[in-house]
């Protein structure tokens, strides 16, 4: 046994020493490579150059939306409706640029739940009557308006489906949206004001909370579940799951044997589903690359000598984006008239999801659960 141990020790030294000695040589040629990767710099870049500016822009877009919205409800007409559509689209698109930052302050505030409820991945699209995906609970909205008693902070599915961007889409752009102000006008005005104000207060809170959260965010360079790097990688996978499911595949009928649920498309009433989905996927790519800053997850992969995987992920982002933009808006019509286009995009999104959820998560050793594990 002792001989065996000695042999093993010799073998170990034999392997580790040459490795250790090789290091200075390579140190001269590529100094950054051997020093590894500055995760704190990456997180600082994410906080300062991506996340916080995106929330600041979001705040501004909501102010613009509020102005246009007030003008619309003061004098509902085709002209004011067109103005609010521009502001609404801009704000909703900006929301797609922050949606993947659903951790820290946004998670505390339940921003995605209140502002753009997706129904979650655990509710299947099997029956048309159910509130799933990006449904709008028009009955609840009209009921809230007629009774005047509602509390937008209550968390129940019906209430969540009666507020945020989807509800505004209905209130601004549903058929005969302007005509509906004829009855119960002041209550309708107030409801719209309240829904916009609720979005504004949530966005303002998240934006201001980031100032304090930033310190914590950039200081934690772990990859455990709930860590910033863990959150970023997990969000990339989660958002692609959302794109594959509620945003694209489920309305297309992937869960319902091809029965299309066109009213459950995100942005159904404004008819800008694909514009939103495209913005969403572009934002995910930006989150992945860190915007060519040498300080993104992409660059971390390169530092981990996973350059080939990184190239593949980048290429797949572009393929998925290319397929996505081929689908004409409104998606609700395209799902029926040209389902093959949505199907093609769906397939590419799934490939991208597999790469991020399996290969990238594995390469970065990110954990997706809190519970104990002894290494698979």
């Amino acid at each position, binding site marked *: 046994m002792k001989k065996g141990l000695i042999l093993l020790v010799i073998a170990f030294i034999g392997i580790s020493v040459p490795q250790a000695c090789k290091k200075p040589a390579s140190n001269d040629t590529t100094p950054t490579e051997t020093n590894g990767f500055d995760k704190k710099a990456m997180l600082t870049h994410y906080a300062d150059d991506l996340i916080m500016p995106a929330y600041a822009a979001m705040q501004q877009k909501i102010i613009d939306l509020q102005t246009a919205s007030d003008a619309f409800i003061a004098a509902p007409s085709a002209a004011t409706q067109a103005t609010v559509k521009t502001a609404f689209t801009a704000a909703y698109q900006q929301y797609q640029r922050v949606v993947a930052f659903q951790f820290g302050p946004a998670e505390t505030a339940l921003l995605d739940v209140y502002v753009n409820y997706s129904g979650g991945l655990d509710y299947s699209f099997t029956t048309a009557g159910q509130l799933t995906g990006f449904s709008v609970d028009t009955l609840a909205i009209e009921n809230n308006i007629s009774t005047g008693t509602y509390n937008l902070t209550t968390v129940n599915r019906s209430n969540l489906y009666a507020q945020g961007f989807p509800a505004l889409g209905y209130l601004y752009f549903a058929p005969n949206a302007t005509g509906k102000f004829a009855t119960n006008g002041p209550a309708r005005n107030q409801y719209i004001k309240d829904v916009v104000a609720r979005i504004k207060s949530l966005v303002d809170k998240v934006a201001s909370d980031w100032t304090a959260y930033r310190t914590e965010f950039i200081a934690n360079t772990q990859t455990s579940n709930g860590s910033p790097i863990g959150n970023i990688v997990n969000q990339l996978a989660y958002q692609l799951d959302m794109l594959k499911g509620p945003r694209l595949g489920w309305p297309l009928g992937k869960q319902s044997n091809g029965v299309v649920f066109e009213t459950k498309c995100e942005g159904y009433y404004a008819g800008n589903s694909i514009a939103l989905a495209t913005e969403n996927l572009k934002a995910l790519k930006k989150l992945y690359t860190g915007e060519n800053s040498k300080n993104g997850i992409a660059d971390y992969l390169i530092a981990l000598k996973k350059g080939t995987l990184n190239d593949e992920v980048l290429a797949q982002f572009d393929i998925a984006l290319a397929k996505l933009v081929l689908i004409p808006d409104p998606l609700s019509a395209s799902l029926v008239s040209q389902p093959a286009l949505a199907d093609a995009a769906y397939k590419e999104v799934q490939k991208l999801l597999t790469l991020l959820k399996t290969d990238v998560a594995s390469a970065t050793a990110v954990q997706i*659960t809190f519970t104990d594990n002894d290494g*698979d």
Partner: protein
Amino acid sequence: MLHRLRLFRLLLQTMTEIRSTAPAATTFFTRWLLPSAPVSITPLITFRIVFGLLMLASIIRFWWRGWITSVYVTPKFHFTYWGFEWIHPAGAMGMHLVFGVMALAALLITIGLAYRAAIVVFFLAFTYVELLDVATYLNHYYFISLVSFLLIWLPANRHYSVDTLLRPELTRLTVPAWTIGILRFQMAIVYIFAGIAKLNYDWLIDALPMRIWLPAKSHLPIVGSLMYEPWVAYLFSWFGAVYDLFIAFFLQNRTTRPFAYVFVIIFHTATAIFFPAIGVFPYVMMVSSLIFFSANFHEKLLSRLPFYKSTTLNTYGGGTPYRYRYTSLFAACIGIYVAIQVLLPFRFLLYPGHLFWHEEGFRFSWRVMLMEKSGSAYFTVKDPATKRRIEVSNTEFLTVLQEKMMSTQPDMILKYAHFLATHYKKQGLSQPEVYGEVYVALNGEHSRLFIDSTVNLAAQPLSWKHYTWVLPYDKQH
């Protein structure tokens, strides 16, 4: 009920202890399997106390983190063990009650009150919980089940316990040597098989998965910047393998023991720092390794505790050694137990294909922190009669933990597929077929198709035989 309990206790007592001083007739076999020379009881006493305390702490930790609810109450579906499909969670109240009872049992074990009953209850409750869901399988939970089973048969309460305080005549200061030997054997099994498992190409030659896991630890003070260095990954891999293979022998050897225990502390502290996600495992091993120490060591250790009466004083009838009745039956049982422990981890040899890929014969074999494996699994349910086709959202049925575990393990994929078939049959599909498109990445290699996506999993039986629908593995270079 009470009557039955009393009967049960009597039965256990008569089965295990013989009061007569006449030596039982021994064959060569019993002598070999059941070395009965009387040795000090003190190592067993320490073991009972630290085991009880550690179990109590880990139950409280599990409860505190809300895992009772998230792991055993929330999930709509559980991955049962084959043959144990009849084991079901007991609901929110029931599960908390089970953990409460388990915590109480752990406390009773620690103080040695109603020890026999407590350890039986603990073993049953703990094993029940572990059998609820394969997704929660951890090697150290298996270890705890085994150790608590062994402790049922060991007289760990016969000194320095409330039981002996109440009934001093129960005190025994010496026990047969095998009662300590069997625990040492169990420890050695864990270490040696963990070491053998590391003797593979990926671990030794490529330093995988350490090369993947260590760069994620660059936040650690002092050593953080070294985490990207390949030689550090080799150091970890080789040190880990050598440690696991030989530590039990160095702990067993009297002269090397103190030095070896320093290594135990260093090694498991390091794993606790580097891989906090493995939970209580390092602490289990650190305290359990104390069983290797001598009676003198334990005597000194225990004498620091309050109310401890030295075994050397021998003032209250403890002079009689603890003796077992039915030694040949015990010898036979231990022989079987030892054989199972030695053979079970080798059952993978009966299967073709790469063990890490197919995972046939992977569990219950002390393969800890051995590979980096992750996957994505997409399932489609088809009804040939109506041509219906449904793509499944796993989140509808599985927790994040369950989905992660299922995505890389063939038997769990099959269990889930069978569940989906049953579920969609209830939903009105007459003959649901289930197809899986599963991608798996092993040890940093590119993800690839894991199972044959054209095979109807609903028609595939659970089996001990090799699953031919899992695609073969070829190493990428």
